[in-house]
């Protein structure tokens, strides 16, 4: 908001660059599509079935990477929040980065919950178990929906940035506390679990490789969409400023009429 943005009418719309892509994002995007293809090929095709879990293990090749990316996204949100808050310039770029990352994290966390429930039905026989990791994930999911709601409260860009940066850091504080408490709670109630094992599998060879491909593929997608989403957010903020310019002109014209 500090620099005066140019009025949109300066450049004819036809000559403007379309979309938010650059060479870097295109390279990222191609790499992402290729690894996604690999993931499907290895996850559903080449990798063998597990001895205990049989084919259900294949869900883990998407479940584990989405969970990893969701937590990565939330940590990036916290880092972006801290960079905004403690940076000398209070740069809105970091705020948008944090916001975009949280939004993607929420999408991934929803997917983690869904694929986790499908896997649980096959492995444990029930969709939902009060497993420490699942429960923590569910609570964090709600918390970050709250974070996105705080972003939507209104006010100036700087107000939004400061408020959500503080909340972004507080919610990260919640991750270890929630995880630890749920874990401690479950450890006292072993009898309630359907299976004795936590469902961990010992992976080797092709299975491990498939999982690795999944992690790479989804991390690439995360990085790629994060760049795009941040740019879209930047444009949303710019259009807000343009709107303010128009409103300022209208307000000034109103003063001319009256005086």
């Amino acid at each position, binding site marked *: 908001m500090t620099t005066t943005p140019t009025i949109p009418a300066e450049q004819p719309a036809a000559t403007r660059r379309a979309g938010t892509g650059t060479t870097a994002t295109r390279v990222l995007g191609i790499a992402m599509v290729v690894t996604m293809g690999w993931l499907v090929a290895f996850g559903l095709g080449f990798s063998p079935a597990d001895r205990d879990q049989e084919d259900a293990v294949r869900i883990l090749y998407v479940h584990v990477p989405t969970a990893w990316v969701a937590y990565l996204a939330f940590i990036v949100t916290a880092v972006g929040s801290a960079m905004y808050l403690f940076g000398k310039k209070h740069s809105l770029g970091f705020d948008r980065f944090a916001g975009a990352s949280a939004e993607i994290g929420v999408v991934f966390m929803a997917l983690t919950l869904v694929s986790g429930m499908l896997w649980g039905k096959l492995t444990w026989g029930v969709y939902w178990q009060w497993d420490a990791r699942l429960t923590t994930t569910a609570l964090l999911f709600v918390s970050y929906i709250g974070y996105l*709601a705080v972003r939507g409260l209104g006010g100036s860009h700087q107000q939004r940035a*400061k408020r959500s940066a503080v909340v972004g850091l507080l919610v990260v504080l919640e991750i270890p506390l929630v995880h630890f408490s749920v874990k401690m709670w479950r450890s006292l109630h072993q009898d309630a679990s359907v299976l004795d094992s936590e469902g961990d599998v010992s992976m080797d060879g092709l299975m491990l490789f498939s999982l690795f491909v999944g992690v790479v593929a989804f991390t690439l997608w995360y990085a790629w969409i994060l760049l795009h989403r941040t740019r879209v957010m930047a444009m949303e903020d710019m259009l807000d400023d343009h709107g303010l310019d128009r409103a300022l002109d209208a307000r000034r014209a109103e003063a001319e009429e009256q005086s």
Partner: protein
Amino acid sequence: MSRWQIARLVASKDLRIERRSRVLMNQVLPFAGVTMVMFAFALDASNVLERVAPGLVWLATLFSLLVLVQRSFAIESDDGALDALRVAGVDPVAIYWGKAFALAVQLAVLEVVLLIAAVLLYGADVPLGGIVLLATTLVTATCGLASVGTLYGGLTAGFTGRETLLPLLVLPVVAPVLIGATRAVESALGTGGVALSEGWPWIGLLSVFAVAFGAGGALAFGPLIEEAT
């Protein structure tokens, strides 16, 4: 004026307002009591009730916490007092501590009443040895709840839609308190044959929670009320 004196000033102001208006006594306590009775209707079997009584006490406390936090900040935003506090440059850390302390006192009163109600309504009994654990749980859990409540109350104060945003923000955060306090009270009352010694590790969790959010809240409260429009 030192930070402590201002915090005391704010706390005594909040408590005096409560003594005059009796919102806790006349509205929140009856609300919590009705919640407890409703739980009894929903879980219509005395052995189940006895088993889950500690959890119900803390659930009723959490719902009442939301009401108390709304009230605590309605006092400030009704006539623009929060603006006046900001203009007067009153130390936000002191405001936070003062309001959190006043909230904690009210919560503690509520919890004691609810615990007694649980013992009477659901027929739980208190072994003598459990009283120390019970009191410690009450103190640590209350500190944690008051810290989180005041923090998010300040964040949402003055916004339209705060009634719905507050529960969304507060409830997931206080889940560890619900878990920890419920388990600790279970072992203090010996519910379901849980040993007394199993309760103490939870006190550790509750303390860490209270310290983490007490400190984080004191730091975050200033920037948050600063950016309220």
